[in-house]
C-alpha cells in the first residue's frame, strides 16, 4: 500500500521540496507542525544542502523550529542535570528514556527532534524513595485530580506526571514498560540490568541499544500513542539505522524481544518502519520477525491500519483506522471491566469541553 504523505516524501527525499508550490509548502509546514517533525524536515533539508532553495516564507517557519529545538535541548540537558542531583541517593541508577536519552547520548535520533516531557525509569522497589526525593527537589503532581491519581497509581507503569514548580517542566517516572494491567508482561528489571552509563555524563544511564529500540516499538505499537506516531516512527527508524551498524545488534534484537515478551510490537515496528520510511532492514530479520506476527489475515489488516494512521491521512477511512487502533491500544492496556468505565469517563469529559489545555 502506498501512502500519500507529502511530509514523508519530503523527509525521505528532500530534493522533492525544491519543486513545491507555495500552497504545497503550506500543507507541508502544517503537516510537519502537527506531526512534530518540522525540525526533522529542517535537518533533512540542511544536510542535503537544500535549505537555501526553500522560499522565504516557509523558511522562516523552519528557522523558528530551529530556535525551539535548540532551546529544548538546552532544557533537557539542564533537566537531566537536576535529576542527577535530585536522585543521587537512589541505590540503583535511574535510566533516561526516549528523547532525553537520545540527546544526552548524542544519538542522531535527537537531531531536529522536538520534546515534550522527560521520561525516566526507576526500580520499582525504589519508586517511593524516588518520588519523595523528587518532591524534596521541587517536583509536584501535575494531575491532582483523584481519578487521574488512581488511574496512574493502580493501573499504569508510571507515576502521575510530575511538574517542576519553578521550571514548569514535566517529568514521567516509569517503573515498567507497559501498564500493570496489560496482557504482555515485559520485565523492566531486565532492562535496567542491561542499561549502560552514558560516556562523559556521570550518573546518567540509557537503555542498551536493542532495548532502546524495543522501548520505542512498544511505546508506539502497543501503547497506541499515535498523536506523535510518525515522530516516534522516525525515532525508531533513526535508532535502527544508527545501531544497525553495531556488531551483534541485529542478531540480538529478535531474541531479546521474545525474552521481553515484546516480539509482536517489534514485528509491527520493523514492518511499518521498513514500509513507510524505507528503513534498511535485512530480509532475513523481517522474515524471522514474522514468526512473532499475527495470523496472515490479521497481519495484512494491521499493516493497512498502521500505514494509514502513521501516514497521517485525513480521510474518513484514516480516521476510522485511528479510532480502531485507539480502542485496540486501550484493550491491550486493561481488561474490559476496567476499560469501559475509563473510556466512558473520558468521553464525558471530552463532550463537556474539559479536554483543552487552558482558558485564554
Amino acid at each position: 500500500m502506498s501512502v500519500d504523505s507529502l511530509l514523508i516524501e519530503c523527509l525521505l527525499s528532500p530534493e522533492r521540496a525544491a519543486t513545491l508550490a507555495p500552497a504545497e509548502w503550506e500543507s507541508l509546514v502544517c503537516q510537519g507542525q502537527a506531526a512534530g517533525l518540522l525540525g526533522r524536515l529542517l535537518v533533512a533539508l540542511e544536510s542535503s544542502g537544500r535549505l537555501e532553495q526553500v522560499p522565504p516564507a516557509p523558511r522562516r517557519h523552519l528557522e523558528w523550529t530551529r530556535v525551539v529545538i535548540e532551546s529544548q535541548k538546552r532544557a533537557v540537558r539542564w533537566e537531566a542535570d537536576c535529576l542527577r542531583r535530585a536522585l543521587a541517593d537512589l541505590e540503583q541508577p535511574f535510566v533516561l528514556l526516549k528523547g532525553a536519552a537520545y540527546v544526552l547520548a548524542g544519538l542522531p535520533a535527537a537531531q531536529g527532534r522536538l520534546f515534550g516531557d522527560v521520561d525516566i525509569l526507576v526500580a520499582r522497589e525504589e519508586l517511593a524513595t524516588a518520588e519523595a526525593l523528587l518532591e524534596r527537589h521541587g517536583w509536584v503532581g501535575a494531575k491532582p485530580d483523584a481519578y487521574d491519581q488512581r488511574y496512574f497509581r493502580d493501573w499504569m507503569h508510571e507515576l502521575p506526571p510530575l511538574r517542576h514548580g519553578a521550571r514548569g517542566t514535566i517529568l514521567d517516572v516509569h517503573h515498567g514498560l507497559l501498564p500493570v494491567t496489560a496482557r504482555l508482561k515485559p520485565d523492566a528489571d531486565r532492562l535496567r540490568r542491561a542499561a549502560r552509563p552514558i560516556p562523559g555524563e556521570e550518573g546518567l544511564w540509557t537503555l542498551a541499544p536493542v532495548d532502546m529500540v524495543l522501548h520505542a516499538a512498544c511505546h508506539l505499537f502497543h501503547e497506541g500513542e499515535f498523536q506523535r506516531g510518525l515522530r516516534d516512527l522516525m525515532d525508531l527508524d533513526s535508532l535502527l539505522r544508527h545501531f544497525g551498524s553495531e556488531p551483534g545488534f541485529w542478531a540480538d534484537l529478535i531474541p531479546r524481544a521474545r525474552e521481553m515478551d515484546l516480539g509482536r510490537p517489534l514485528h509491527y515496528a520493523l514492518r511499518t518502519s521498513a514500509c513507510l520510511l524505507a528503513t534498511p532492514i535485512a530480509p532475513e530479520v523481517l522474515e524471522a520477525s514474522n514468526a512473532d506476527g499475527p495470523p496472515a489475515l490479521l497481519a495484512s489488516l494491521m499493516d493497512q491500519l498502521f500505514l494509514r494512521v502513521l501516514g497521517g491521512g485525513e480521510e474518513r477511512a484514516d480516521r476510522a483506522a485511528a479510532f480502531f487502533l485507539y480502542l485496540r491500544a486501550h484493550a491491550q492496556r486493561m481488561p474490559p471491566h476496567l476499560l469501559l468505565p475509563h473510556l466512558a469517563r473520558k468521553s464525558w469529559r471530552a463532550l463537556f469541553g474539559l479536554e483543552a489545555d487552558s482558558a485564554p
Partner: protein
Amino acid sequence: MIVADLSPEELRGRLGGAGLSLRVGAYLFRIHSPLEPVARGLALMYPDYPLAPEGEFADFPVRVMPGRFLRRWLQPQARFLANGHLPFKPMPTCQALPLLEWGLNWCVSNKVFDRLVIHSAVLERKGLALLLPGSPGAGKSTLCAALAYSGWRLLSDELTLADLGVPRVYPLPRPISLKNRSIGILKEYAPGAVCSEPVHDTSKGSVALMRAPADSVARALEPALPRWVVFPRYVAGASSDLRPLSRGIAFMRLAEQGFNYGLLGRAGFDALSDLVDGCDCHEFRYSRLEEAVALLGALDG
C-alpha cells in the same frame, strides 16, 4: 485589494470556502469560519487590511468552528483551531470575535521565534516607540487606545515584536481589546473610533474591540526605534504621576512579560538589554486620559 473591497457575500464565501487571507504586519493569517459573529466582526474591524492572493503561503491557517456534538446547538460554542490544535477551551458563539483575537495573538506569541515577543502595547511617534507593558487589568490597553487616537501610531495593543539584532520593534496592528469600564471611557474619549458591540461574561469580563486607525494599518511594515518604556497603572481618581524607573528593574519586569524570553536564551537576553539600554523607563500612575496623553506626549525624544 483590501477587505472592504469584498461584498458581504464574497467575505462570507471566502470565510466558508478557501479562507480569508489577511496580511497583518509581517504575517499572513488565513481565517476559516462559518460563524456569523466572525464574518460581521472581520468586516467591521478589518476593512483596511490587505488581502493576499489565493495560493500564497499562509503563516497561520486558523479556524473558528462551531462546537462539537451537542454543543453545535445546545448553548452553541465556538472553537478556535490553529492547524488542528485547540489552544483554548471552547467559548459561547457570541464570543467568537474575541476568541479569534486571542487565537491570533496565541499564534504569534507561540510560534514566532525570530523576534523577542513581549506582552506589551507599543506605539510610535516621530519614529520613536513607546512600550506600555503591563499585567492584565493595569490599564495598558485603555491608555494605548487613547494614544492611538491622539496622534501616536499604533503598532500593537498586545504584542511587542523586538528585533534580535538591532534595537527595533515591528508593528502588528490589530484591533484594540477594551475591557469592562474602559469601553465606555474610550467611546467618550474617541467618539470617531469604530467599536464592536461589547460581548459580556467572557473570562476577562465584557470585551469590545476598537478598530486600529487606518494609518497604522497602512504603515504595518514600518518599524520603530524603542525609546520609552512606561509601566502604566490605572488608579481611579489619582492624579497622574510619572516616575523614573531604573533600567535594571525595567529589564526584569519586561523579561517577565516576554512570551519567548526564556526560550530564546542568550539572544533574548541580548535583545532585551539592547532595547532597555536605549530607553527611558518610567512607572506611570494615571486616572484621567487627557492628562495622561498630554504627559506622555511631552516625553523627550
